[in-house]
């Protein structure tokens, strides 16, 4: 299975993701920011596809672009926008933000400097179709054997359940 025009698509998708990310933090209109974020998320989904992780890409589209961003838009639309447009976008937290950005940049530079040797060489590349099954096996295990991440996965789902219950209790006057 030969990849299709990999360098071109890689740079296109990364460019889109970065441009989208920049737009997210520079737009004053929250809706526009949200739309830019959707572009970023879709571009990232495309990058996943290029990494032969179609399942992750699909989930990225469904959960982030299709689900969470709709909720974002939902919330943004319900709050009054006119004031937020007028407000100053950068508040007093900017030194912290700058610090975080700088350390991230430093991390990137160090990774770039050390080069390929930093990462553990993985095994043979999996065929595309086995990828989804591998995820399943890792999460749920095979017959008679628990998966590598079953426990963590179940804990996470339990946590989410608690979060759902909590939000229901908070939102509902009487149950």
């Amino acid at each position: 299975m030969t990849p299709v025009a990999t360098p071109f698509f890689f740079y296109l998708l990364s460019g889109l993701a970065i441009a989208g990310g920049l737009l997210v933090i520079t737009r004053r209109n929250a809706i526009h920011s949200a739309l830019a974020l959707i572009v970023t998320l879709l571009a990232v989904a495309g990058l996943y596809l290029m990494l032969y992780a179609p399942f992750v890409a699909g989930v990225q589209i469904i959960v982030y672009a299709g689900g969470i961003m709709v909720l974002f838009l939902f919330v943004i639309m319900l709050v009054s926008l006119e004031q937020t447009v007028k407000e100053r976008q950068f508040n007093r937290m900017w030194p912290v933000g700058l610090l975080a950005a700088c350390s991230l940049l430093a991390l990137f530079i160090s990774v770039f400097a050390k080069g390929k040797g930093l990462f553990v060489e993985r095994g043979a590349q999996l065929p595309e179709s086995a990828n989804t099954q591998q995820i399943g096996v890792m999460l749920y295990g095979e017959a008679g054997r628990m998966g590598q991440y079953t426990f963590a996965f179940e804990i996470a789902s339990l946590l989410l359940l608690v979060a759902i219950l909590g939000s229901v209790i908070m939102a509902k006057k009487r149950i």
Partner: protein
Amino acid sequence: MLDSLMSYLGSTLTPGQANNQLWALIYVFIIFAGVSVAVMAMNWIERKALAHFQVRLGPMRVGPHGLLQPIADAVKLLIKEDIIPAEADKFVFWIAPLIGLLASFTVYTVVPFGPSQAVSDMNIGILFMLGVSSLAVLGVVMAGWASNSHYPLIGALRSSAQMVSYEVAMGLAVVSAILMTSLHGTGLYGVSKLTDGTGTLSMIGIVQAQQEQHVWFLFKFFPLGLIAFGIFAIAMIAETNRAPFDLPEAESELTAGYHTEYSGLRWSLFMLAEYAAMIAVSSIAVTLWLGGWMRPFENWLSGSTWDFVFALFPGLTFLALAAIAFVGVVRMPRHSYFRVQTIGLAGFGAVLALIGILLLSIVIGAKFSHHDILNRTAEGLSSVYWFVFKVGAFMYLYIWYRATWPRYRFDQLMRVGWKVMLPISLGVLIVTAIVGVLLG
């Protein structure tokens, strides 16, 4: 050039899998044009069928029996003034219909019209379809917000809430169908065994699983498959905002919902997207539960003779349509006013008859000549025909629902979605898993 074109025709892979970009492009064009024509045809059929449900005639003026009405409508919409409200967010207003359209057309990349009649077969086909079709919500939400008007906003909020909530039940119903792909069984409750690594998310793989198991998932683990299908069939109507769940466009409440402020071409893009989405979700239902491109009664009426008989259906259908057109010609009033219409209808009938004869000759030729490409073409035609036939049945159901039912109220819609459909689909999923393991 021609060689490379022809060489693919003998292949049994989709162009995407065969890495044949030229054919992939051709398929994309065929599907795009086909879906657009199907939407126009659906427009005509809906108006006609709805009219006959409601004791009226429907379009009758433009062309014989209004056959050219969709074209007239399209022309009208194209030349209409394109109005953008003064206070609207121009960019978002402009891009919203495109997003909806893109989402509903991109889905067709993985729709398996036949064993190799798809642009590509993705490993995560069904996931891709659900994911991309869920992006259509964004178009609706953006349209509602960008119009800067109350009714579109409420319409957009309604439809996004509706789509997001019904996606949950829909997804769970889909999962139970996917589960069935890995549970081998030969009938309703026939021998079944759990096998590792045979389950699949690929659209073509799902149909192939039904082929191998000799059962449409609709009938598998009766009534589990049927219930899951029912859940999906209801949820897909809600997903596409059609009656009785057409609240986002409830004209008696919200004038036209999220596209109230749209006009002309942009409005028609929304309509195109809506109908394309209807066809797309119907294709999912057909693929998952109704055996996709499989012809009906493959178990009962098996054998090459029956295969041949069923392969004749496409040609016969076109001949039947031609016959109807010719009946129309005969019944057309003998008056000079109707001469053009009569000739037009006769020509239309002749074209249909020609197509029918062509299809029949391909099938009969394939039967007796055993030429590889001819054989494959005949098979492909039969597959596409049965797929389209099943999808068409769903389209008719859409019209039927619209003619019959009043509209749900929003809270009732939500209640049905969360308190009825979700638990049932969850239950079906769990019971399917248990049944599969017990019989395995």
